[in-house]
């Protein structure tokens, strides 16, 4: 390695991180600005946090988003695990190739197309069979579950791929029923992948604007929908305060997760 390159790589890395984190830092700094104008510093203030906490619309939107994210991620977990399991364990069944193809469609389909297509489906279904009646929470949950299922399936498939089946076989040889083997052996072994898949689906749901906007109806406003309507008209210091709170929560979660992953067990393995 030449001396020039050993300088070049860290410099590019630093530049990349500056690019990724600079805007976030600027959001945080200006959330404490007393002035409404984001670019003029008028002294330190926590005024926007007060206004944010008193804004009932944001509270409602956050609660709506949280409920949708928990329900849709859980549905995606069940369906995605089933789908991943089926692809991993059943090498041959009619339409398997098509099944595998369909499962990857939500991963590559542009959000606007997926949102539009699901809305058209809901409208058609309602006019033909009367369900779902109107659009709102339920339709957003279905849309997010449809997206999440594909991501959970990828994660579960990757885990099952590197899965040692000798434990399952041993349990079967000892007379355990297949359902019990799944519950007692398979499930605990793939649990970390399930947790990762659920979390991924949960985050995708919580952050989604486009699918929710298409499939939502009156009375169901998610947090991204609220953020979008407040920032598309220009700068809004309450959005800065909200971003700061989100960053704080995520950082805390990342630190806790990092501690858990590199915690006592990992250290014990090292020694």
């Amino acid at each position, binding site marked *: 390695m030449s001396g020039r390159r050993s300088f070049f790589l860290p410099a590019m890395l630093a530049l990349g991180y500056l690019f990724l984190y600079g805007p976030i830092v600027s959001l945080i700094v200006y959330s404490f600005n007393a002035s409404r104008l984001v670019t003029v510093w008028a002294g330190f203030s926590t005024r926007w946090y007060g206004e944010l906490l008193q804004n009932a619309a944001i509270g409602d939107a956050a609660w709506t988003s949280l409920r949708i994210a928990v329900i849709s991620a859980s549905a995606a977990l069940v*369906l995605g695990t089933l789908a991943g399991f089926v*692809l991993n364990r059943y090498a041959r069944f009619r339409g398997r190739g098509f099944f595998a193809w369909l499962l990857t469609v939500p991963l590559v389909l*542009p959000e606007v197309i997926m949102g539009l297509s699901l809305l058209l489906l809901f409208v058609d279904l309602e006019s033909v069979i009367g369900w779902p009646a109107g659009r709102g929470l339920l339709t957003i949950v279905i849309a997010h579950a449809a997206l999440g299922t594909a991501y959970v399936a990828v994660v579960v498939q990757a885990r099952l791929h590197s899965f040692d089946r000798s434990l399952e076989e041993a349990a079967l040889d000892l007379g355990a029923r297949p359902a019990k083997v799944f519950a007692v052996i398979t499930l605990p072994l793939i649990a970390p992948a399930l947790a990762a898949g659920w979390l991924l689906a949960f985050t995708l749901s919580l952050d989604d604007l486009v699918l929710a906007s298409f499939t939502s109806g009156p009375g169901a406003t998610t947090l991204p929908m609220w953020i979008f309507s407040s*920032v598309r008209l220009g700068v809004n210091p309450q959005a800065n305060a909200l971003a700061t709170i989100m960053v704080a929560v995520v950082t805390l979660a990342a630190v806790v997760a*990092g501690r858990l992953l590199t915690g006592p067990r990992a250290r014990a393995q090292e020694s």
Partner: protein
Amino acid sequence: MSAPGTGRGWGRRGLIGIPYLWLLLFTLLPLAIVLKISFVESRLAVPPYGPLLETGEDGFRLGATLESYARLFSDSLYIRAYMSSIRYALAATLISLLLGYPMAYAIARAPKAWRIALLMLVILPFWTSFLLRVYAWIGLLKGNGLVNNALIALGVVGEPLPLLNNSFSVVLGLVYGYLPFMVLPLYATLERLDPALLEAAADLGCRPWRAFLEVTLPLSLPGVIAGSLLVFIPAIGEFVIPELLGGPGTLMVGKVLWDEFFNNHDWPAASAVAVAMLLLLALPMATMRRFLREEAR
């Protein structure tokens, strides 16, 4: 007694049937309906489109029309939106590659204990709102924004540069939003690369840059392709970035679809735009799916 996954009969049918039915209903059927709606008339009604098959006094009448598609070709707005979507997405992919490759390389060559932490730093922004991260650039790029104020204070420019609501801010936003998608697959291929290959090249008198061009780059090509597709595909259909950072001159096809649907309430036109976008993305999406399948294998 059968192992889980080798049994036949109803249990197996149920296990396969449930996710299959779900995918048919909520992935395939919606796309089929988009195709259908793209061929019907736009109407002032609820829902705002006509039927494909109409029953009249003289029996059935086919309501299919190519009206929406004809508009895609006759109104230059659509063509321009497609062309600029491709241009912006290509520019964003190229810039992401030029910035992301050295980043991924630096992380892959960092001491092992640091790699996870450095990689986490690339992924972490994903867990904060995408909308808010894009919104942050408005405050930075505005006429009296942070970047312009800094440039003026430093005496680099006399008056504010037009940094927002133009092609520059849209491409910048796309790079910002999708850079991590470029870094991750690149890292995955570069990390697997055996350093002994480079040492062998050096021992044989190969200069570092030539070793890079002839050993590292070709071996990391799968990562380059995967990363480029992961940036290019979502960038083509992106809505939030052109909406928040773009201006009247920065058309993108995702935003055109959104406007047809939400502002013009022309659902057949929105569907036709969607179908045309799918045709545009068919090749990149098929390539991407092949990659996904190989990864899963």
